[in-house]
């Protein structure tokens, strides 16, 4: 793998670290499997790219992308909480609707940002080569947002959100309004994912209507890889493990694609993703079974 490819992998891994934190909030904290992210990743990219092309400040554009993502998340929460549509289905509906909305926002299937100013523009004067600058910038973003979320999850509000996902009845008995926590959690999660989309568009120079496909699987893969490597209850470490998981997942994918003897091409990405996630899911279970069998054997002898 060339240095350039390696830096590219790190950059994408860090951007998807934000997605992983968002997915962690819904899947693990709220126990609400939310597929909206496939749409809100593109939504963030579409909003940011369209606004930048129109001449808005890139930071304002990224902020608006976050707001748009939050609204998408609230939409899913509303379908689920107000009309009792199954969470998974509610999120699929929002995701499907977002596909059209994203096309409408961009007005065409993709928007190029090659010559436009981006969130990176103010730092270009520092003279750091672009490939390092991108990695440093998205790395700082991932770390900053990660720390904020880790702090949030340890506040009283964050604790109440975790209780909502863990034990609704107990949460209510302790005065926690669970609907509000679900709205807030989905908004926060999708805002993070939309920011990731906006950053992706600006570091890669384009927004495309299909760029969000598979976001949920990648995010989930990162969460699971992180969990199986750094199993912990410490919130700082958990958020950190989401980012590490995302980086490792990206590295594994790019190594699989780069290993000539395997003969994979870029179009095999989804198969590799599915296989990696399956392995990450199955390994802990196999390890348990193996340990149980060993214990049984020892008990016999």
């Amino acid at each position, binding site marked *: 793998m060339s240095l350039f490819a390696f830096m590219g992998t790190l950059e994408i891994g860090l951007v998807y670290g934000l997605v992983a934190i968002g997915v962690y909030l819904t899947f693990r904290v709220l126990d609400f499997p939310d597929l909206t992210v496939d749409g809100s990743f593109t939504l963030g990219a579409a909003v940011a790219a369209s606004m930048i092309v129109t001449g808005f400040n890139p930071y304002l554009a990224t902020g608006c992308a976050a707001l748009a993502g939050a609204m998408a998340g609230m939409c899913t929460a509303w379908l689920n909480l107000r009309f009792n549509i199954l969470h998974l289905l509610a999120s699929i509906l929002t995701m499907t609707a977002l596909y059209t909305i994203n096309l409408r926002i961009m007005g065409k299937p993709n928007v190029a940002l090659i010559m436009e100013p981006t969130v990176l523009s103010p730092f270009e004067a520092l003279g750091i080569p672009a490939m390092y600058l991108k990695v440093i910038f998205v790395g700082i973003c991932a770390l900053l947002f990660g720390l904020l979320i880790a702090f949030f999850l*340890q506040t009283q*509000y964050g604790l109440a959100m975790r209780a909502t996902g863990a034990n609704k009845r107990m949460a209510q*008995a302790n005065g926690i309004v669970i609907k509000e926590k679900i709205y807030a959690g989905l908004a926060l999660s999708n805002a993070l994912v939309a920011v990731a989309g906006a950053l992706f568009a600006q570091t890669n120079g384009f927004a495309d209507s299909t760029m969000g496909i598979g976001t949920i699987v990648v995010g989930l893969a990162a969460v699971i890889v992180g969990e199986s490597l750094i199993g912990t209850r410490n919130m700082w470490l958990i958020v950190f493990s989401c980012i590490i998981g995302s980086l490792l997942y990206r590295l594994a994918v790019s190594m699989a694609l780069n290993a000539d003897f395997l003969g994979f091409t870029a179009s095999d990405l989804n198969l590799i993703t599915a296989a990696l996630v399956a392995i990450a899911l199955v390994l802990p279970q196999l390890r348990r079974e193996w340990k149980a069998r060993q214990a049984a054997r020892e008990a016999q002898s």
Partner: protein
Amino acid sequence: MIRCENLRVTFNPGLPTEKKALRGVDLVIPEGEFVTVIGSNGAGKSTLLNAIAGDIPASGGTILFGDKDVTKLPATGRTRDVARVFQDPLAGTCGNMTVEENMALAYGRVERGNLSFALNDRLREIFRTQLKRLNLGLENRLDAEMGLLSGGQRQSISLLMSALQPSKILLLDEHTAALDPKTAALVMDITSQIVAEKKLTVMMVTHSMRQALDYGTRTLMLHEGKVIFDLSGEERRQYQVKDLLALFAKARGDGEELDDDKLLLGS
């Protein structure tokens, strides 16, 4: 303190599965009274507690706490007044959170600050002091995951959690039924301590006749969604378990079967 007027609860109204769980309960429980509630399965004991807590909306009638009409308030709106402990030891705590995090959640029951750290040294000290009362060594395991503790330990902590914030009403729904006899005795012991200390108004549902007479100052018997017997004062002190059993038999109209009913005889 608690006043129910013609309280009715109907499940699945208008459907073939319609069930009238409470058929007009009139009840006045003055402040500081400890009421034990008994009745056979399906009598409406848990429904009555859940209606008072706000988990189940009333289909008719009113519920008042003092002068405050709370009939329309959801459960989360009543937590200033009501604390509760569930029958299932797993229901009252979050298994994937630590002991101190669970206690911090309960600490926020009355007033939930928002974006400040949920835990700090001052709170940990309060939690440690509380946990010492249990004599289970839990004061040294504040950062242990709740899911790793036994049912008895979790239920004891649930009980402490219910008393972390001042409340006026404590609702106990067979909170010792799922515990082994020794742990059940411990939990009952702490219950009595907390109730005496905080001068709470208590409703305790129980299946044990012994418990129903040994604890509290008043005993209610529910049958088919109504209060059929209300015992207190001198009369209650004269009562024996066998007298209660006789009442049960009368209510159900099948005295002979009673001897086999382990739930009723359980002490």
